[in-house]
């Protein structure tokens, strides 16, 4: 363990701004990418459902 | 747009993008592949002396002198072969230290003094805890004392 307290940890030896800007932005971007992929999946399935219905109608 | 026209537009756009990228790359290579020049290169007149350029090397130990205003600083950049004196007015980066790497941008005056408008620290690729660095330093010192005739730093 490198830190004596939690506030010590947050202060990052005086480099809090730079360290947390790096970690924060990365976390945000990764979460955004996951959300985007989930949305993409929903949309692709929705479009495929429409195509399937069209095929059903045209075959009946 | 007809399909053929569209294809042409795509190929044209692709070529244009490639040209811009190539221009960017070549331009970057031309000016910046050598991000800085060493003091030896400066003495050999390989650096563009008529315009601003960057000089890089180590801050010579014991050469850093601060003026009374607290902002102006003079130091010497060395590559162990040649030395170039530098003056700079401004805030130095945290890692600026004697014996450590430095890159300064500016012009070389006729008096041989490099007047910098920007000073960057160039650190090495070693990472270790302070205790390890200290131990390494001690080891180096005691090793040196074995060779030195008046070495009395034994524990």
């Amino acid at each position, binding site marked *: 363990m490198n830190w004596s307290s939690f506030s010590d940890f947050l202060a990052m030896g005086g480099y809090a701004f*730079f*360290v947390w800007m790096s970690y924060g932005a990365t976390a945000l971007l990764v979460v955004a990418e996951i959300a985007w992929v989930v949305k993409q999946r929903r949309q692709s399935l929705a*479009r495929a459902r429409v195509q399937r219905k069209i095929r059903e109608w045209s075959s009946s | 747009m007809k399909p053929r026209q569209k294809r042409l537009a*795509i190929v044209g756009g692709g070529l244009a993008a490639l040209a811009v990228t190539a221009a*960017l790359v070549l331009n*970057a290579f031309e000016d910046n592949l050598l991000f800085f020049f060493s003091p030896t290169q400066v003495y050999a007149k390989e650096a563009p002396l008529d315009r601003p350029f960057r000089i890089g090397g180590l801050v010579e130990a014991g050469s850093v002198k601060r003026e009374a205003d607290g902002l102006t600083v003079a130091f010497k950049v060395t590559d162990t072969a040649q030395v170039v004196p530098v003056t700079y007015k401004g805030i*130095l980066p945290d890692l600026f230290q004697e014996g450590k790497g430095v890159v300064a941008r500016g012009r070389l005056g006729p008096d041989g003094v490099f007047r910098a408008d920007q000073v960057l620290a160039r650190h090495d690729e070693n*990472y270790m805890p302070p205790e390890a660095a200290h131990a390494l330093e001690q080891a180096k010192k005691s090793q040196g004392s074995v060779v030195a005739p008046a070495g009395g730093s034994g524990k």
Partner: protein
Amino acid sequence: MSIHWFKYASPASFYGLAGRLIPWFAAAAALATLAGLYIGLVLAPTDFQQGDSYRIIYIHVPAAWIGMFTYLVMAGWAAAGIVFNTRLSGMMVQALAPTGALFTFIALWTGAFWGRPTWGAYWVWDARLTSTLILFFLYIGYMALRASIDDPRRADRAGALLTLVGVVNIPIIYFSVKWWNTLHQGASVKPGSSSMATVMLTGMLVMAFAAWMYTIAISLARVRSIIVEREQHSAWVGELLVAEGHVGAPGTSGGVPGSKGEKAR
């Protein structure tokens, strides 16, 4: 052996394989991230010259590695697409690009926030930084090129060519710090040696592993959407919707896209 590989080169069977693999890679990514963050931010000591600003390394270096490595994998799929003319290849290139771009951006971003406190500048135009910016532009260029071509198969071919042309940039990035004077320092980790304390190195390698696992998981998830999107007219996707429970059995009407509660039927 090769028969098995080519079996999975069909998007339909790769869709299933990817679905089975994703949870494993995602779990590995999550566990490695937790372990890596714990080692890097809690256990690892302060650096002797950079203080705690060096802790950005646990994101910066893995992101830069994965940014470059993903491009190489993309180029491999692109080459396979040109040689074997398989549909899956183009889809994989398409699936990898956004994540490669993301990690390259993260490397540039964290590099800026690391450069400011250590070098004294957010950005400099040295060979390492410039060539990494070009890598980011290559990813963006690939995605823009795809978006500008309506026919996916033609977009595959054009994208593959662009990807292969750009691959020359990867060795330039990697060796830039050796070939030219740069502000960026040399590599701390080279094959067979490292200039980092063991705990620090361990944290960084664990984070790199996490980023690698994440990249595999997220691009497999993305390629599944791309497969469904691009094969939506085929019968197997229709059967898949039923098999996975996204619509009712044939004849019971699929429901309106976006309507809730279809799974319950």
